[in-house]
């Protein structure tokens, strides 16, 4: 029974396909999985918009949307109808073809990333040998669509926003890749299912997730920073900093094309959270060995939604960075720590089992973090804040 519940979607697909003639079966099998992904994640996006607005409102001591439906939960339906019925305005001097293609390319590239994420036991659309490489290749393609949107609008704000976004995404993609490489070194595979399988065993009831090792914990923190920057979320949301750039690269988009950008941003957030879950948080495996009876897909989506909650929490908490702070942080702090983490992961591998490797790796990482942070702070000469006019 429990096994059936765990595999319910796989069995459902198998049952549906069994009605068809044999030559059609593999094609329909893939199409059903694609349909599930393409319908599930936009639905999750609709829920998340309410969740985010409610959460942000709570953080800012407001009530949030409460007019449409009970507690405002039908708000996304109203928003969807609104964006469908709005006039689609294309600026006269815009490059019509590229302007049209940009949101399409963005959403397609972001959806492709879901193909390799294992969302439960046996629940992965394409179990590739080079799954992680595929994911990053698709992630790299979204940068071009951001540029296309900004350039084709013929608007200074759009172009500046796109340039900022592309510069930021390229810088943090280095960090994203390097922090994931440690996991590949340990698991010995680029296949995401194998990475989950490598973490899915327990000692004393506790899981062997990579976040519970010194290099994994450091790698996860850097991955989370890079993921926030890659998805242009606050505090790294300067590409669309509304106080300076109106809305950044999608200033000149209205109606459903704007909704597509919005969708793309949230889908990117889901997929990058899913990848982080897979790499560091054990994917679909349960956090304690006595909880393994709960279906694997529930664990994956719980971890995903927990990451989304942290994203919303950060957005409600942190102020926006400045452009030079953003670049300095990526290249002068996170990147050296990533390179050091690669070395530490190698040490961890060759020091063998025992307490020695825990001590050595932790001391190196914490020491480097402390030394670099202390040095940077000393150079900044940060003293007590003085107010010129407000006293």
């Amino acid at each position, binding site marked *: 029974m429990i096994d059936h519940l765990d595999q319910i979607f796989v069995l459902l697909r198998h049952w549906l396909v069994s009605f068809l003639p044999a030559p059609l079966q593999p094609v329909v099998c893939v199409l059903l999985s694609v349909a599930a992904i393409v319908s599930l994640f936009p639905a999750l996006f609709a829920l998340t918009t309410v969740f985010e607005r409610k959460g942000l409102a709570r953080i800012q001591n407001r009530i949030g949307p409460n007019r449409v439906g009970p507690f405002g939960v039908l708000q996304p339906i109203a928003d969807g109808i609104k964006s469908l019925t709005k006039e689609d305005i294309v600026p006269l001097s815009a*490059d019509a073809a*590229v302007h049209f293609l940009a949101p399409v390319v963005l959403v397609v590239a972001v959806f492709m990333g879901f193909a390799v994420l294992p969302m439960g036991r046996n629940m992965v659309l394409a179990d*590739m*040998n*080079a799954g992680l*490489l*595929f994911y*990053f*290749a*698709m*992630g*790299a*393609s979204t*940068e*071009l669509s951001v*540029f*296309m949107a900004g*350039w084709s609008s013929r608007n200074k704000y759009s*172009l500046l926003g796109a*340039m900022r976004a*592309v510069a930021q995404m*390229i810088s943090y*993609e280095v960090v994203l890749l390097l922090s994931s490489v440690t996991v590949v070194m340990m698991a*010995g*595979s*680029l296949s995401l299912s194998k990475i989950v399988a490598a973490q899915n065993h327990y000692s004393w009831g506790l899981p062997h997730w990579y976040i519970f090792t010194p290099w994994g914990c450091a790698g996860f923190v850097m991955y989370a920073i890079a993921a926030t920057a890659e998805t242009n979320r606050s505090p790294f949301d300067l590409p669309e900093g509304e106080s300076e750039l109106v809305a950044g690269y999608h200033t000149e988009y209205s109606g459903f094309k704007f909704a597509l950008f919005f969708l793309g941003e949230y889908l990117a957030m889901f997929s990058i959270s899913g990848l982080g879950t897979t790499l560091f948080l054990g994917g679909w495996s349960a956090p304690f060995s006595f909880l393994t009876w709960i279906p694997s897909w529930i664990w994956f989506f719980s971890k995903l939604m927990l990451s989304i909650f942290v994203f919303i929490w950060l957005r409600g908490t942190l102020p926006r960075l400045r452009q030079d702070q953003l670049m300095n942080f990526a290249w002068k702090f996170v990147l050296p720590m990533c390179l050091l983490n690669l070395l530490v992961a190698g040490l961890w591998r060759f020091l063998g089992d025992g307490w020695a490797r825990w001590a050595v790796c932790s001391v190196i990482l914490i020491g480097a973090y402390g030394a670099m942070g202390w040095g940077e702070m000393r150079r900044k000469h940060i003293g007590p804040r003085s107010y010129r006019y407000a006293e």
Partner: protein
Amino acid sequence: MSFVFYLLAALTVAGAFAAMLLKNTVHCALALTVAFAGLALLFLNLDAQFAGFAQILVYIGAVAILVVFAILLTRGSETPRDGVFSRTWFVGLLIAAGVFATLSWAVLQSVRVLPHETAVPTVTVLQIGNALVGRFVLPLEIVALLLTAATIGAVIVAMHEKEGQQ
């Protein structure tokens, strides 16, 4: 040669032609990206996963972005007045045809030199990784050194310019 191959080949060639013939420079860069994507798909069609994904990651993710940045930072994307064809297009065509002829000759000769290669080789990413850090570690390190030198050189050029402005 399957139907998929012809489809991808048509896409790649169309992208390359558009990159050559379009008036707007940014459009050319975007068309070149289509050609890159077509090449990546051709690699995947041949079951070379690593080459295909690396092609997307490096060429679409980095080289295309570099090209559009270079275009926007230098001349702007407006159409040059004297057309998109350079005056030496015939020489360029000759060189391109020569390179193409040499490569096709080499590819066609390989059938005669290696007549027993009938089975499709299966190369996994793991094998490529092992070969790179095992047998081919010296070339890898030399390339890494070269790229580091190039990066340092780029930084020095950029810093020099900044001093001149101040």
